[in-house]
């Protein structure tokens, strides 16, 4: 996916760009509203991550101003957890909000939910053998057959699909699949891999176990 991140804190922005990059997303960074305008004029984005407090204005006012001409969904990054603030952001045309500091699995979940509501775009689909996997809707479509995946299965498959042929360790998968608010053991990964294998049976895509190292996908 292609993101536009509007955030004036450079360290945070850098970290977000890098972290989303690890998941295979392309992120352009704008440090102020003026730069954001330039980016929006030059490129087409799947999603905008918009900070509220920016050096050259309030992100929500920018949103209210641009909303009519802007088709790209917007997720507002807010530092405040108060409901009033969130309601305000939604009223001004944001599709959703997320409170800093945010969990990237949650950010991804929210992005997916927003894109699903907006109808999504073909750009985010993956070809898996003869089938097409759409992580936003959580489906694998093959000929006239549609397979529905649960959220963690979607994320697992997305990780594999973005890194075809690459071995993913259990620990790597663990950090992408689970937010860190509860202790999860690596055994859980085996459970989800097992389920995903079963669902991919008919598609002709295999998830291989590489003993001692992890898993990889073989188209």
């Amino acid at each position, binding site marked *: 996916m292609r993101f536009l991140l509007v955030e004036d*804190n450079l*360290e*945070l922005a850098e*970290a*977000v760009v*890098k*972290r989303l990059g*690890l998941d295979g997303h392309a992120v352009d960074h704008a440090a102020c509203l003026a730069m954001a305008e330039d980016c929006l004029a030059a490129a087409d984005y799947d999603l905008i991550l918009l900070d509220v*407090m920016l050096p050259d204005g309030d992100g929500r006012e920018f949103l209210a101003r641009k909303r009519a001409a802007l088709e790209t969904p917007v997720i507002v990054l807010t*530092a*405040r*957890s*108060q*409901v*009033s*603030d*969130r*309601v305000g952001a939604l009223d001004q045309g944001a599709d*959703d909000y997320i*409170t*800093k*500091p*945010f*969990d*990237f*699995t*949650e950010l991804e*979940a*929210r992005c*997916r*939910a927003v894109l699903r509501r907006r109808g999504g775009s073909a750009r985010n689909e993956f070809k898996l053998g003869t089938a097409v996997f759409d992580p936003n809707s959580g489906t694998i479509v093959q000929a006239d057959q549609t397979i529905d995946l*649960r*959220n*963690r299965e979607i994320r697992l498959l997305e990780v594999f699909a973005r890194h075809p042929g690459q071995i993913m360790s259990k*620990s*790597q998968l663990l*950090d992408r699949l689970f*937010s*860190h*608010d*509860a*202790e999860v053991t690596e055994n859980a990964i085996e459970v989800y891999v097992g389920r995903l294998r079963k669902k991919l049976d008919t598609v002709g895509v295999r998830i291989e176990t590489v003993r001692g190292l992890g898993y990889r996908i073989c188209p």
Partner: protein
Amino acid sequence: MITQTLSIGRRLTLLLGAIAALLAFLSWGMVSSFSGQAAARTQDNVLAASVATIAETLRSEQGTVRLELPYSAFAMLGAISEDRVFYRVSVAGETLTGYDDLRGGRIPEAPGEVLFDTLEYRGETVRMASISRVVLAGREGASVTVSVAQTRNGIAAVTAGLSRTAAVLSVAFFVLAAALSAIAARASLRPLNEIAQSVSRRGPSDLRPIRRPAPSELAPLMTALNRLMDRLGQSIRRSEDFITEAAHRVRTPLATVRAQAEIALHTVTGEEEKRSLRRVIRAVDESSRSAGQLLDHATVAFRAEDLDRSPLDLSDLTRAVVESLSPTAEMKDISFAVTTAPAAIRGDAILLQTALRNILDNAIKYSPPETTVSIQVTRAKAEVQVEICDQGTGLGAGPVAHLTERFKRGDNVEGVVGSGLGLTIAEEVMRAHNGSLTLRNMTKGGTGTCVLLVLPSA
């Protein structure tokens, strides 16, 4: 609470009433005294006319003074009342005719002059007029004095009657004046009441200046009130700005730390390092969560003091909160089963959302993946209920009631990030709305926790 002194309206009424009473009393006194005087003067005039008439008829005949009493002189006295009349005509002190003992009055010196006296006669007060005249009897002129006296009962009766009428009129005047003063007091206080009402009708966060027209006496008060509201508004805005700014400054670096830790987690290979990075992330989450809940807690305490009671539908509100938390639930493949019914209540939308969000947050946090959290909004007679049940591990064996206390957590929550404020916040919101929050362990169909919220319906 303000110590209430005597109301301005009552003060005005009492003051105006007292003035009216004084005026009524004075007017009664004056009318009675004038009418008494007028009656006395009338009697005097009639007595004067009577003695003059009698004096007119004095004649001298063969050297002696003769008198033929004209009855008209007494008839005119009878015209004013039924009082008894006495008379005496004396020549040089010798009684010629009439009551010999009717003496004691002054004898007028100059002829034609009428003198009046009030004296006691035969046990009664009488008014007496006397006139002197010189009548030629033979060669010498004899000084003749004519006196006519009349009792004063009639006059007293007339005076008393007039005074009574005056008293009745004065009382009527007083009653009317008192009623008018009450009306006047109320009318002149109406602008004050209107302003008081328009201020008390306002919502808790409405700090706009009062713009309604006011009498000049109230202008200083209104100006002071508006200035106070302006200052209050500014200080609220300042503290809100401060909280926003402080939150921004704390949370942005936390977000950086978290993002960096996640990046590191993906690049380091050592299990030991990964474990400590995960610990860092958990610590960041914990502190940001606590900060958020402390803010929520402060908001609840602040807003609950002067609760906004707008009409709203709890079902709509619940669905909105559920929708905003769906992505978070989805991450654990937890689904929400929502059943709602129209549930009109009066309350503060922001507070109720905060309460629901905290409860649902808990439900998601303590539920195992791929379970269902059920939310049921129902309506019974005078109350609206929201029951939120999860399929988690329940509340543990410890006592349940204390879990809504500040920073108290269940005894089976190890390994889950939490601050122990969520339920406290929710319960405080319920209490502010005259509702309640009850916790219980699910009893049938597996384990789990149920939170029951009860609110009075609108």
